[in-house]
């Protein structure tokens, strides 16, 4: 589109008889940034494919064998090294890890979120907390878990604490943004009536943003379920993720991975459906 425009405008320079041409695209900052972002990403992607470490891999063959694996996984799943009840129990262990992490994270995040909301404290406190939280978020969860594992040993304690770190940072961002969206008038009205900070928080701020807080927290629970599986696999946190890791790395049993994947998928899709339903209900109630 652009090239064509330029072509016609070049033609006009050569031919003075042509009438002034009407351009239709306008170059705004937004369109320039959009275009350059897309171009840079495309170039980096192309470069990435050239720089990949392929390790003499036959890509076609590997893709075919992956298809065969996926077929075996999903069409012929079985449990061999674990029983059905064991797998089910482990799913609940993973859910338990996700729950504890979300709960601890939410409690801490509400307090930090209040302090991080610019309209409830001041700009300096807010910036400090937001910066601190951004720093925590920048470290991948698995690294937090492994770092804590040095002090607490591998297991549920290190996993929950490490994962809580990340939940806190995620929820503080989400909560403080919800608080900041709060109508200024509500706080003003209570201030005018002589209420103190805590009274304003408990009688105005939290009740009016409760629906947002709940839906963000539930979303984080969904994420934490996935994270807990990954931590089971990568950081020995137990649960269904660890079983998956064993099936993959020790028993090399693709069909068992398939069975476990079905367990995980079932729970994850149930959680997603619950979240969607939950959101709809909150929306209706909110109106």
């Amino acid at each position, binding site marked *: *589109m652009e090239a*064509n425009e330029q072509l016609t405008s070049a033609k006009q320079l050569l031919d003075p008889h042509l*009438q002034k*041409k*009407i351009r*239709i*695209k*306008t170059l*705004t900052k*937004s369109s320039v940034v959009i275009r350059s972002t897309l171009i840079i990403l495309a170039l980096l992607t192309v470069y990435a494919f050239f720089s990949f470490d392929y390790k003499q891999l036959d890509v076609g063959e590997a893709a075919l064998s992956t298809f065969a694996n996926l077929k075996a996984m999903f069409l012929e799943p079985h449990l061999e090294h674990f029983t059905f009840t064991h797998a089910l129990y482990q799913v609940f262990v993973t859910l338990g890890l996700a729950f504890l992490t979300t709960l601890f994270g939410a409690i801490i995040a509400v307090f930090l979120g209040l302090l991080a909301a610019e309209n409830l404290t001041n700009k300096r406190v807010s910036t400090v907390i937001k910066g601190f939280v951004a720093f925590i978020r920048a470290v991948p969860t698995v690294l937090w878990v492994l770092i804590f594992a040095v002090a607490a040993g591998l297991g549920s304690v290190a996993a929950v604490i490490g994962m809580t770190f990340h939940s806190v940072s995620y929820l503080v961002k989400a909560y403080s943004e919800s608080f900041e969206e709060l109508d200024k008038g509500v706080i003003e009205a209570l201030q005018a009536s002589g209420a103190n900070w805590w009274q304003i928080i408990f009688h105005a701020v939290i009740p009016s943003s409760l629906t947002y807080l709940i839906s963000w927290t539930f979303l984080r629970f969904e994420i934490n379920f996935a994270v807990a599986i990954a931590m089971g696999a990568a950081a020995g946190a137990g649960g269904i993720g660890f079983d998956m890791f064993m099936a993959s790395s020790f028993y090399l049993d693709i069909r068992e991975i398939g069975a476990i994947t079905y367990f995980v998928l079932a729970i994850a899709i149930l959680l997603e459906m619950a979240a969607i339903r939950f959101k709809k209900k909150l929306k209706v109630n909110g109106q």
Partner: protein
Amino acid sequence: MTVLLEVNHVSKQFGSDTKALSDVNFSVSEGEFVSIIGPSGAGKSTLLRCINRMIDATSGEITFDNMNVMNLKKKDLKKIRTKIGMIFQHYNLVNRLSVIENTLHGNLGKKSTLAGVLGLYSQEEKEQAVKILHVLGLDEHIYKRADQLSGGQKQRVGIARALIQNPRMLLCDEPIASLDPNSAKIIMDHLRNISRTMGITVLVNLHQVDVALKYSDKIIGVNHGQVVYNGSPKNITKEDIQRIYGSEAEDLIFDVGGIHAS
């Protein structure tokens, strides 16, 4: 006057028990300004959308320009839609594009897929767009993004997009329902102008009786999916308004008297 649009025995059923339109009949002549009035939920919007088949009617016959709209194939349907401009209550512009780009969108129906995808417009098309925008008083806003305009200006862009199609007829779905009285008047004046000077037939859904009476050559009153009035605005009576609006009519009747008096 030749008849441009004919609607015969048209019904529309949503699901199994909600009847939006039942046995609707009317005709519109070339160049006429026709208002469809009625309470909200009466089926005005559905009726309008059945004409250009944005919604498929369940039964009946719609003839536009001597062509039966109801059994057109996809390709012919697109062709006939290029001859019918449509204007919406919420303007339905692409907010992030400029006014002129939105206007030129009216030409997409006549373009090949490739030209449409790439957005290639000829010099004449662009000149015509500028001309139309000038007529509608939007000269200063040609390169503004649509979301920077006021409601009335957005609706004028909507009209420009319809006009560039060179339509035989305009379908206007509640064009002034989201506008302040001043902008509403500007829009209605433009529509009347278009009908008078360009000879384009205008079919407009309104819920304001006074506006309809003031601007139209003909009024079609719809209630519960049925046509309950079809005739000139001059002959409309209190009883007619009562039939169109049912129990909501009480506060409207007063207006009718006022309009007739002036």
